[in-house]
């Protein structure tokens, strides 16, 4: 019991600090309008955008799920991580400055704003994009409560039950997102990003010391678990399906263009800073994966023989058996940081998409700013309740749900890439609103079929997200050949803006 209480002290302190940061005067929540609630219209400082996105990028799978993954499948996690993060970084470097420039110029709030404007403000395109992006975000929200809640109940020996942990996490996040929107999210995520980064290194130092240091640990691994030191791992899991078509396409592309990253691209002060996110963020994210390998190996040597869900929880078990209670508390807080930083950003963007793309345009148009701000805040309450209800299903495989929602990005990413491309070859490809919508519907239907109906989720050794992407592109291009494209004015507007971005030597003025 005393160990359980000890493990709770630091998470409680952590919660208090998060609440202070999320509600403090620096969030400037009293001067908010709807634009400023969902993005920092005047532009946020780079550390806020960088750490805000970095913290929110890693889901609760980072702690303790990734350690469990290494425990089960070995060092191939690094190959997976490299594809996941550096593909995402590359796509961000390429597209983030363009998204930022267009958004600041035309005052976009959601991904749907940009895509719909290209297709002459097509309602169909806006609604299709809103449905895809909101499905992504809501799906991602509850997965980020489950991980930390399980960790809390495990390390406190069920003194704090799973239900209570879920409720408290959601309540804390909803409170500061409700009050301060994106600013509350950014400030709290600075803390969370720093916390989870450093705590994983300290945990790795602790775990490797437990087994006598890195050198003896690797020697023991070589002697007893050599198959863990290479691809495809002891269970043959890390094949082409996982480390390329899953990691690169679903997680990499999905991570770069998921709805929440758009709100950070929109909030960067200038295109150069948005681009800087692309070449800095993979190093932060990969920096977390390196110590994860040491933790996974140490857990394998100290508590071998775990399978299934127990293997996923090998790191919490190691902590519970060996570490002092307060350190367990630090890890709980780190896991809460990983989960809450994603949950708050996803809550914010889900509310934004609903209010801006659906409510403001089709349910209650023509109201004043205050009305939409209140509606936005109520939508956060509803999202929090939905998230709480979903956590009761206790999906055991958080990673699968995370992949499933990431694959949704494959439904709109190709069109976004074509819209924002500068090269002659890509610009010459014809895309139409009908092609975009048909590609999304077909890809979405295939995603549902492969996941919930078909017995084979990954045909011919390729992950379903690769099939969804390919189907979407083929259908989009085919339908586009026979349907009417966007107006010349609209195409020229985008082309001109992108050209301006690369001709301008001075950064774009910040608009207030």
């Amino acid at each position, binding site marked *: 019991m005393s160990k359980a209480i*000890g493990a709770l*002290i*630091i998470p409680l*302190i952590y919660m208090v600090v998060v609440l202070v940061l999320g509600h403090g005067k*620096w969030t400037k929540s009293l001067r908010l309008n709807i634009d400023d609630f969902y993005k920092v219209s*005047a*532009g*946020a*400082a*780079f*550390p*806020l955008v960088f*750490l805000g996105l970095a913290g929110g990028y890693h889901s609760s799978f980072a702690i303790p799920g990734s350690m469990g993954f290494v425990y089960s499948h070995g060092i191939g996690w690094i190959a997976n991580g490299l594809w996941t993060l550096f593909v995402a970084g590359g796509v961000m470097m390429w597209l983030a400055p363009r998204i930022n420039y267009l958004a600041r110029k035309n005052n976009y709030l959601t991904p749907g704003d940009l895509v719909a404007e290209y297709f002459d403000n097509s309602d169909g395109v806006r609604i299709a994009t809103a449905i895809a992006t909101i499905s992504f975000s809501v799906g991602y929200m509850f997965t980020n409560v489950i991980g930390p809640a399980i960790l809390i109940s495990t390390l406190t020996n069920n003194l704090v039950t799973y239900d209570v942990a879920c409720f408290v996490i959601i309540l804390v996040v909803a409170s500061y997102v409700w009050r301060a929107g994106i600013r509350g999210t950014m*400030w709290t995520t*600075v*803390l969370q*990003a*720093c*916390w989870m*980064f*450093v*705590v994983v*290194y*300290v945990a790795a*130092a*602790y*775990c490797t*010391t*437990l*087994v*006598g240091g890195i050198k003896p640990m690797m020697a023991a691994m070589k002697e007893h678990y050599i198959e863990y030191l290479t691809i495809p791992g002891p269970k043959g899991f890390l094949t082409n399906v996982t480390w390329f078509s899953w990691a690169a396409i679903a997680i990499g592309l999905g991570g770069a263009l998921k709805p929440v990253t758009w709100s950070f691209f929109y909030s960067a*002060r200038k295109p150069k800073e948005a681009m800087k996110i692309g070449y800095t963020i993979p190093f932060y994210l990969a920096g977390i994966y390196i110590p994860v390998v040491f933790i996974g190996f140490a857990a394998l040597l100290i508590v071998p023989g775990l399978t299934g869900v127990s293997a996923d929880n090998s790191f919490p078990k190691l902590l519970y058996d*060996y*570490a*002092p*209670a*307060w*350190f367990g508390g*630090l890890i709980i807080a780190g896991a809460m940081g990983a989960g809450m930083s994603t949950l708050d950003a996803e809550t914010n963007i889900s509310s934004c998409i609903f209010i801006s793309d659906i409510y403001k345009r089709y349910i209650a148009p023509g109201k004043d700013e205050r009305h939409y701000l209140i509606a936005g805040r109520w939508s956060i309450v509803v999202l929090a309740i939905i998230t709480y209800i979903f956590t009761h299903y206790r999906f055991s495989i958080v990673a699968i749900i995370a992949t499933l929602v990431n694959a949704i990005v494959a439904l709109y990413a190709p069109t976004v890439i074509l819209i924002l491309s500068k090269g002659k070859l890509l610009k010459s490809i014809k895309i139409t609103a009908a092609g975009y919508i048909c590609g999304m519907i077909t890809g979405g239907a295939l995603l549902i079929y492969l996941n919930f109906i078909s017995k084979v989720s990954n045909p011919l050794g390729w992950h379903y997200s690769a099939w969804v992407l390919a189907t979407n592109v083929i259908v989009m291009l085919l339908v586009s050949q026979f349907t009417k494209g966007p107006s010349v004015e609209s195409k020229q507007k985008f082309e001109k803006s992108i050209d301006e971005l690369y001709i301008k030597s001075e950064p774009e003025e*910040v608009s*207030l």
Partner: protein
Amino acid sequence: MRLLENRLYRVISLIVLLTVLLIPSIVWASEKIEPLVEPQIEQANIILIYGLFLIIAVIFGGLLWAYKANRDVMKSLEQKK
């Protein structure tokens, strides 16, 4: 004078926060180290004490970095107004 006050305020806040975070943790850790027999566990627990300082330093460093950058942005926006 105002600058001095601000700095003093920050230093005091930092000390208070460090104390609040550190004392219970160190007490807890020192209690845990004593009864342990296996040398690796003992060593690992000592590493945790250093780790705790590192954690606090990184968190404060990160927050300070964000705070300063944000303050500079706000100042430049005020000037543009």
